[in-house]
């Protein structure tokens, strides 16, 4: 789930406003985009790249490892199945508000087809200095810079802020993995921790969570077994119970998904939990002795 400069990327929904804007940004940064999909504009050229009728057609023509979806929620399931059947190794689902049953279906299909899903409702993946896939400000050197911290986040904007704070303290990122803000995710925080534990380019992991669900509790269980230091920040300490805080997954129901439970689980696992995003830099300076 760490994207590399050599990865060939297909953009589903490349001709839309956002698909166009972010494809331009990705190409400018060095992402190897091989083309896009829009069934209505198949055969045309866009941004100097071929537009295919389907991911299957793109796979037969230029080939790709990674697909990224700029596709509206009700069309997401079909687009995902198309990419999975075409053999995508990695599928980045940026779309927010996909019906949950469609999400479960596409994740089940991906599992059967050997595709790793990132998201839904993620801002994507960044490997500073190499490439990015999604809608992160990779091109802003105050936010993303090559380095040795792996960053995992359920939120794009908060993930960007944390990266900014790390860069300010002199820490770049080995990679940024946006797992997404939905309750049901293809790749969990725990999965991303494992990827960074195994990554030779990563010395420590910054984990950005939020209230709702049990992702942080599950991640804590794995963090307890890790060799590399993990530092966490959990958003939502001041959030009221029973209200959905923007993300579909960010809701406290009774005693489930609370800030307190997550913080306690992480601290029991030996993970330092920050009170504010601005503390991230100092925390790594201490943890890594830099």
């Amino acid at each position, binding site marked *: 789930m760490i994207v590399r400069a050599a990865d060939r990327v297909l953009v589903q929904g490349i001709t839309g406003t*956002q698909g166009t804007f972010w494809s331009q940004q990705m190409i400018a940064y060095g992402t190897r985009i091989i083309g896009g999909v829009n069934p209505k504009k198949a055969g045309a050229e866009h941004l100097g790249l071929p537009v295919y009728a389907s991911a299957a057609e793109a796979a037969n023509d230029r080939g790709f490892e990674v697909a990224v979806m700029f596709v509206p*929620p*009700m069309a997401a399931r079909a687009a995902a199945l198309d990419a999975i059947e075409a053999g995508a190794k990695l599928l980045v689902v*940026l779309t927010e*508000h*996909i*019906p*949950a*049953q469609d999400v*479960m*279906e596409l*994740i*089940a*299909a991906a599992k*059967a087809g050997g595709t790793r899903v990132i998201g839904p409702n993620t*801002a994507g993946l960044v490997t500073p200095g190499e490439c990015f896939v999604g*809608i*992160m*400000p990779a091109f*802003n050197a*105050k*936010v993303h810079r090559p380095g040795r911290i792996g960053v995992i*986040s*359920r*939120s*794009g*904007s*908060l*993930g*960007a*802020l944390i990266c*900014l704070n790390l860069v300010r303290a002199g820490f770049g990122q080995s990679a940024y993995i946006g797992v997404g*803000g939905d*309750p*049901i*995710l293809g790749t969990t925080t725990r999965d991303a921790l494992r990827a960074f534990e195994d990554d030779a380019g990563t010395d420590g992991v910054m984990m*950005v969570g*939020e*209230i709702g*669900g*049990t992702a942080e509790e*599950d991640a804590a269980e794995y963090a307890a077994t890790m060799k590399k230091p993990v530092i966490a*920040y959990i*958003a*939502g*300490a*001041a*959030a*009221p119970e029973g*209200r959905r*805080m*923007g*993300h*579909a*997954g*960010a809701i406290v129901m009774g005693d489930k998904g609370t800030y307190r439970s997550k913080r306690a689980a992480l601290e029991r696992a030996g993970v330092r939990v920050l*009170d*504010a*995003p*601005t503390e991230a830099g100092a925390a790594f300076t201490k943890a890594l002795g830099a």
Partner: protein
Amino acid sequence: MNFEEHAAKPLLDAAGIAVPKSRLVTSAEEASSAAAELGACVVKAQVPAGKRGKAGGIRMADTADEAAKAARAILAMEIGGHRVERLLVEERIPIAREFYAAVLNDASAKSPVVLFSTLGGMDIEDAAAKDPRALSRCVVDIREGFGHREAEEMLGGRDLGLPSPKRSIGFAQAGDGAKDVAKTLVALYRLYRQRDAELIEINPLALTEDGRLVALDCKFTLDDAAIPRQPGIAALGARERLSALEARGRELGLQYIELDGDVGVLANGAGLTMATMDAVRHLGGRPANFLEVGGQAYTLTKSALELALANPRVKSLVVNFCGAFARTDVMTEGVVTAWEELKPTIPVFFSIHGTGEEEAVELLRARLGMEPFDLMDDAISAAIEAAR
């Protein structure tokens, strides 16, 4: 979106799961005539809250007069912060056994889960604590579905028939119960799929003295993301309780949640907005709201600012942008334009980073003569100080 009992039960009925005959009423007089028609009945408060029985919102009535009396009492109640305005008057079902059945999204399994318990009529958590063996759980492969084979496997060998004295009379044989329950579970799963439920729960699912299965209560939660493709039933769901400002936010397509503090918060993205609220509290202040302009809503910044300022408790404002997808130049343009128009008297403090940052900072300098704080904490501290 949650459905109250009276809105959920017709969905079960249409799916082939039996429910008691009932009338939805709003007065004691209507309750009385409903009871005259239905006979011995149960009068139930219709509110989007649990624990209605414990609160006294569910009462038995043998006659029309008793129904009117029960209705009068319940209509005077408030349950879980909701005033009772509607009642369901339901025929009373003679219960032999109570079961529990549900289908829901399981985020950890990333799959639907079917639950069945032989201990119904109580909280499923309480039932699990009382006797863990009573609960069966089936993680469904959503691509394969949940049919009779899966249901029967899940119920495997359980005695779900009538208690022995009745059975000996010969109404129902052991094993028949399991077949009927399996049929109900399959119908419930089909309904869950057809109607994009997040959760359907029947508790209790009653086995009547004459061997029928009847759903006595039902919870149904529709996946909010599926509302566009479920227009037929979305109108039946309970409206969320929103303050006037929250309702206005909803109409504008903005995520706005009113809190009781005095420092207004405007940020992009759910995570950053929460973190900004948290930091207000952490640094000794009190946030006045959650207001997110992320996702597709980042072009609505002008409306968002108006909304934040419309709260009379707000004494200062923090604008915290860290653009990924959302472009800070577009959002800042919205804030600056609205600020010029509205000319608010309260102080505002900015912190701006990420996509479009340079243009955004230029805009702020040129048109409001303001400098953003480099650190979000400094902007927040200044706003807290100003609110004092």
